[in-house]
C-alpha cells in the first residue's frame, strides 16, 4: 500500500484554487495513486474562502477536520493562517505571501494580520514551511494566474509527496489547454527552483 497523505488547500474565490486542486489530483491519478479530492462549490465562491482537499493513497472522505492535514497549501496568507488548525502534528505548509484583503479590511473595518505574524505562527505550527512570492513568480513565468502552479511546483519538488515535479510537468502537458502549457511549465519550474535553492 502506498503512503497515505492528506493535503488541505485554501484560497479565495476566483483565485483558481479549484483548478489547482484538480491539476494536483490528476497528477496523482496519472502516477497510479489512489486519489480523492473534495471541494465545495456555489455560494462560497462569491469572494469567500475556497477550501479543498486532495487525499492520496486510499483515503475516501472528501473533507478534512482539524489536525488531519499532512500538507497545507495556502494560496493566500490570511487563509493559510485560518487553516492552521487543520494541520496534523508534523505537518508542512506551503503558502503564498500575496494578500487579497477581504472586504472588511478594504473598507477599513478589520486589520489584515502582518506577514511577520503569519510567518511566526506558521513557523510555530509546522515541521517545515515555505512562503513563496507566487504572484511575482507567476508574473515572471508569464501570467499572474500561474502563481498557483508555482506553489504546486514547490510542493512537488519538496519531497513531501510520493511524486516529484516531473509528474506535475507531465500532468500540465496532458491536462491543460495548449495555450496555457508553457506558462504553467515555467511557473512549476520556478516554484521547484525556489524550494531547491532554499
Amino acid at each position, binding site marked *: 500500500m502506498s503512503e*497515505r497523505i492528506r493535503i488541505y488547500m485554501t484560497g*479565495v*474565490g476566483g483565485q483558481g484554487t479549484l483548478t489547482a*486542486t*484538480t491539476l494536483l*489530483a*490528476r497528477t496523482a*491519478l496519472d502516477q497510479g495513486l*489512489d*486519489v*480523492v*479530492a*473534495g*471541494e*465545495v*462549490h*456555489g*455560494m*462560497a*465562491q*462569491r*469572494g*469567500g*474562502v475556497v477550501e479543498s482537499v486532495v487525499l492520496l493513497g*486510499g*483515503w*475516501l*472522505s*472528501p*473533507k*478534512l*477536520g*482539524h*489536525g*488531519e492535514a499532512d500538507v497545507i497549501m495556502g494560496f493566500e496568507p*490570511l*487563509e493559510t*493562517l*485560518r487553516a*492552521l*488548525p*487543520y*494541520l*496534523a*502534528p508534523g*505537518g508542512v505548509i506551503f503558502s503564498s505571501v500575496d494578500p487579497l*484583503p*477581504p*472586504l*472588511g*479590511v*478594504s*473598507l*477599513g473595518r*478589520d*486589520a*489584515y*494580520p502582518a506577514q511577520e505574524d503569519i510567518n511566526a*505562527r506558521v513557523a510555530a*505550527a509546522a515541521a517545515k514551511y515555505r512562503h513563496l512570492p507566487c504572484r511575482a513568480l507567476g508574473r515572471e513565468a508569464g501570467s499572474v494566474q500561474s502563481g498557483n502552479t508555482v506553489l504546486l511546483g514547490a510542493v512537488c519538488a519538496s519531497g513531501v509527496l510520493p511524486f516529484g515535479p516531473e509528474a506535475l510537468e507531465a500532468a500540465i502537458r496532458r491536462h491543460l489547454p495548449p495555450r496555457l502549457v508553457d506558462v504553467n511549465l515555467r511557473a512549476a519550474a520556478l516554484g521547484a527552483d525556489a524550494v531547491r535553492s532554499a
Partner: protein
Amino acid sequence: MSHPLLTAVPGERHLMLGNEAIVRGALEAGINFVTCYPGTPSSEVPDTFRRLGGADGRYRLEYSVNEKVAVEVAAGASLAGAMSLVTMKHVGVNVAADPLLTMTYVGLPGGLVMLSADDPGCHSSQNEQDNRHYARFAGLPCFEPATAQEAKDMTRDALLLARDLEQPVLLRTTTRLNHLRGPVETGPLPEPAARVKIAKNPQRFVPVPAVARGRHQALERALAQARSRAEQSPWNRMRGKGRLGVIGSGIARAYLADALYAGGWEDRVRVLDLGMTWPLPEEMLSEFLSSCDRVLVLEEGAPLLERDLRALAQHRAIPVSIEGKGDILTLYGEYSTSAVMRALAAFMGETASLPEAPVAATENLPGRPPNLCAGCSHRAVYYAVRKTFGDDAFYSSDIGCYTLGMLPPLRMADFLVCMGSSVSAGSGFAMAADKPVVAFIGDSTFFHSGMTGLANAVFNRHDLLIIVLDNGTTAMTGHQPNPGMLQDVLGESAVHLDIESVVRGLGVTEVTKVKAYNLRNLLKALEDMKAKSGVRVIIAEEPCVLYARRTLKKVSPQIATVAEQGAEARRCLEELACPAFTRDGDVVGVDETLCAGCMVCLQVAPGVFRARKRGE
C-alpha cells in the same frame, strides 16, 4: 464533441467530479432525456450534459422553469417510453412533491431517476432537510453513492432498475459526493435506450379515485419487488467479524472507512455498507442484527435508518442494542472522519488516539463572507432602494446571489421563506405590517415561481413594490439558461420570454423598466412608485457582470478612479461597499483588476470619482 465522458472506452480510469460521474452513469444506461432546475450542489449534472451538447442526438436536455415542471416533463417523457433523468437540489424536491407522490402510483414505463442533491451543513441552502424521507414518503427505491465510481455505477443501475420496475427511483446524494473528485473506471457506452412501446391505458395512467386505490396497492407490490432487489444488490455488503456491528449509509461510509483505517480498527467490527438504502433489505439486515450484540448506525441527517432498524429488531424479536444519534453523531450538519472515530471509540470502549491539532482554532481573523461581486448590478439597485426607503420599508428577499444584499451596509433582506416567496410572502407581510414592503426577485426565480405569486398579488389586490433584478441569467448557480435569457445566447433550442410582457400580461399596470447602472433613472422610478399603491413592478436590467464578461464578452473599457479624497469618497466606500474599493487610513482607492467599470460610484459621489481607460 470529443470529451472523455463520451469517448472513454471500458476500463479507462478518469478523474471525475461526482456530478460528472453521474452523467457518465446515465449515458452508460442509455439515457434519452434530461430535465432539471439548477441548484447547488446538483448543477454540474445538467451543465455537463449541456457541455456535451447532446452527444450527437444521444439525449435531449432541458432547463425547465422549476422543479415541479422539470419532474412533470420528465415523467411525461417516461410515460411515453423514454428513459429520463431529472435533477435538482433537495429543496427543489419540495416544489416537485406533488407530481412525485402520484407518479409512484401510476409508474413510469420508460424509467425515471430523480437526483436529489441534499446539502447537510447548508453550504449553499436555506435548510438541511434529509430527502431520504421522500424515499419512504413517496415510495421510491433509493441509491446513495459514496465515491465517484459509485456515483457513476449507481446512476446506471438506478436507471436500469427504474425501467425494469417501471417505477421512479431516487438517486440521493449530498454536497460532498456531488463535489468530490475521484477515479472512475468507465464501462461500456451503449446506444441510447430504445423507447418502450406504450399502449393507451387510462385504467393505469389516469389516477381518478377508483384507479388510484388500485395503484396504491400496485406501488406496494413494486416496492416488494424492489426490496428483493435490495437483498441481492451488490451495493449492500457485509464484511468483518465480531459481535459489534456498524451500518453505514451515504457519504458516512467514506468517513467510516477512513476512521476504521486511522484507528487501526478494521478487524474489530462487523460492517454493513448500505448503498441501496430503500426499500431496506430486511432479511440481510436481520441476519446482520442477529449476528451482533450492539450495532452503531452511521447516517447524516435524520435517524431514519436507526429507527427503522429498531422497528425491525422489535418486530423480529432480535436481541440487539441499536445506537446512533447522540452527543457525537448529531442531527445537525455533516459527519466527519474525526466524529466517526470518536463515535466508534465510544462504541467500542476505546480511548482513541485521535489526531490532535497542534494549533487551536484561529480567532479574531478578519472574516471573508461571500459578497456581491464588484460591478454587480444588484448593488446599484440596493443602494438606490436604501436611498429611497431607508429603514422605512420591509425588504422581502428571494433565492439568488441577491440574497447576499442582506449584509451591511446594504441590508436589503428582512425576510425570506423559499424560492419565489418574495412576492407572495411580501404580499401577506404587507397586509399585516405598518410599513411598505419592497420585494426583490431575480429573473430566473421570477419564472421559477414568482409569476404565480404575482398573479395572486394582482388578483387579491395586494399592495407592494416588486423589483425584478433582471441580470439575464441564472447567476448564482453558474449562468444556466432561463426564459429571460437573450435569444442569441439561448440559441435554437429555447425561446426568450420577455419579463415586462409577462408582468403586464398578468395584469400589472404600474410597470417600469430601467437600467440598473443608471442611478438617476432608478431613483426616479423608485420615487414614482413609492408614491403609488397596489402592485407595482420595476424591472431593473443589467447583465450579471461575470456573465457579461464570460458569455457576452462585454468588458467595460473604462474603470473608476478616485479624483478627490475626502469625506464623500469615504461615504461612497462605506455605503456602496464595492469589493473593488480599497482603503488605507483615510485614502480611498479603486483596485484596477477588480473594478468592472459599472461607474455607479461616479453617480453616487459625483466629482469624487472619475472614469479612466483601463490599463492607463
